[in-house]
């Protein structure tokens, strides 16, 4: 697992707004996807989640997950198109993870009438090693 409890809590609240049809399985798929990223990218994503979690406190006196869905949406819209490049980047990056996790996996396919794979092969869930994270200095 790469998401901490607080991050999982944040991501669920994020998903509810960004991909309203997503269910709990998507959190697991997204977690796996984030784990497959290099450590430095994972760190940036975690930092974005931390900031986006507490930022609403300064305006609404609540953290992101405790806001109503409408307020969460307003806040995310501000991050998504607002003037702060790093917030935009963080938002669109995490949105990509959420969408890939939902639409890239079976749970969404029926709703799209997408047939999924044509061949019948086992799941491939073991992640390869990132050579630059695991090795010491060159």
């Amino acid at each position, binding site marked *: 697992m790469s998401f901490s409890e607080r991050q999982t809590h944040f991501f669920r609240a994020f998903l509810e707004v960004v991909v309203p049809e997503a269910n709990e399985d998507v959190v697991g798929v997204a977690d796996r996807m984030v784990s497959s990223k290099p450590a430095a990218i994972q760190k940036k994503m975690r930092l974005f989640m931390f900031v986006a979690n507490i930022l609403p406190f300064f305006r609404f006196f609540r953290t992101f997950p405790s806001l109503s869905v409408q307020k969460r949406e307003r806040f995310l819209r501000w991050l998504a198109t607002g003037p702060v490049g790093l917030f935009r980047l963080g938002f669109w990056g995490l949105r990509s993870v959420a*969408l890939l996790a939902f*639409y890239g996996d079976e749970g969404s396919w029926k709703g799209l009438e*997408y047939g999924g794979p044509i061949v019948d*092969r086992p799941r*491939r*869930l*073991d992640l*390869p090693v990132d050579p*630059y994270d695991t090795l010491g200095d060159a």
Partner: protein
Amino acid sequence: MSSPEYDVVIVGSGAGGGTIAKRLAPLIEKGLRVALLESGPRYDRTYFNQREADMQSLFWEGGAWLNPEGTLQMVAGRMLGGSTPVYTGVTFKLPDDVCREWNVPTLTVEDLAPRFSRLKEEVGAAELPPERINKNNELFAAGAEACGMKTIKLEINVRGCKGYGFCNLGCASGAKQSTLEVQIPSAEEAGLEVIHNCHVRRVEDGRVHAEVLRAPEGSTPNERPEGKISLSARFIVVSAGACSTPALLAASQLPNMSPTLGRFFTVHPSLTVNGTHPEIVDSHLNFPKAYYVDDFSKSHDVYLETAFYYPGVTAKNIDGFGVEHLRRMKKYRHMMAIILLNHDAATYENRVAAEPGTGRPVLEYQLSEASIRSLVQGQREAARVFFAAGCTEVYVPSAPDGMITRDQKDDIDQLVTVERYQKGRIISSSAHPQGGCRMGTDASDSVCDPYGVVHGQPWLRVADASLFPKSSHVNPYLTVMALSDRVADRLIDDLA
């Protein structure tokens, strides 16, 4: 620590490394000792399960290798075969005028012509038979022609394609002619030694330093134990791809390297855009790509090619989120798809660097204003094609809320604007990294000579897309193979 002796060690097994291995096969049969080291795992075609979420692991950085400014996501394969097991197989010769513009001595249209013919035959490149052309392609051709554009048929390198349509997740039938299916097996038959999960960290005169990594479940197990290895070799050919070769050479800290190492890195920044058609299109089924339009290549540096994507990447490409995004995605099966490929300028500033300490390649690429203008014009032209083909809505990220409806179709130029290409929100992608070890005659402005010999290091060769001095304009794999074929010529001479 083992120290076997090799005549040649090849680093990387994609279009470049695979071509070198194949060319050396007759000599390997006669006793030449050659090893091919690949950082990624060895998967055979039965590994590819056509599931988007699972197959992210076939790519470096999960298929989304970001540049620091966050405007570009690089997609590059990391497995035996490099990017070729996931390429679409679109086959282009380097255009004659681009070859002349490259202005590399001995690299002429006449020199390349017979190589292209032979290589095309080797990978079975030809136009698709009519039964393999899907509805997205038919609609694209009709729409583009209605707009007065000239559509041209693509040549594709498949043999016995089953039309699964999952080409970018690995061809489950082996029909796509990748180096995993063609060049590497034929060289292995001759006696080539392949070491997969073998990540090269540093090269020096006569030696390669690497580490054998864990083999993921379901992939071919390692023959060598995990851990550091050091191999001695007379010649080293680096074919780690344009994202990795410059970083590997930089991390190796070789003496007297050209100041242009890593520089003039180009990527063909691209966007995939969609339109929804009243009928079911299923652009992901059958063979995904059959046509392109080059009418805007000279005027706006952009090509339009038919495209396809599975739901996850399609969802990412479509602007917005929440209920409205869901509404758009519900039309997935009705979506047409076009990819816009900008041939970007090669500039000194854009480069691949090596992260200090780890040697991780850092893609210091900045998307230029010129590229943004090209991609905006490409979106406008694609929108016209979609509407002419009968689409009711078009999703292009530089329109307000990322969408144009049919009743707005006469206002495309006003709606799709450069100002609406907001960096950070719109992320272009690339599957065509090029340059960084450009060829030339002088070490002050090139890294390699016209035959891939690194200036000042006669033992070291480069054979991959990093050799390109500028963008190839077109999809690059055949040019990578042809340049590597030239590198093999010189190497074979030098081995003699």
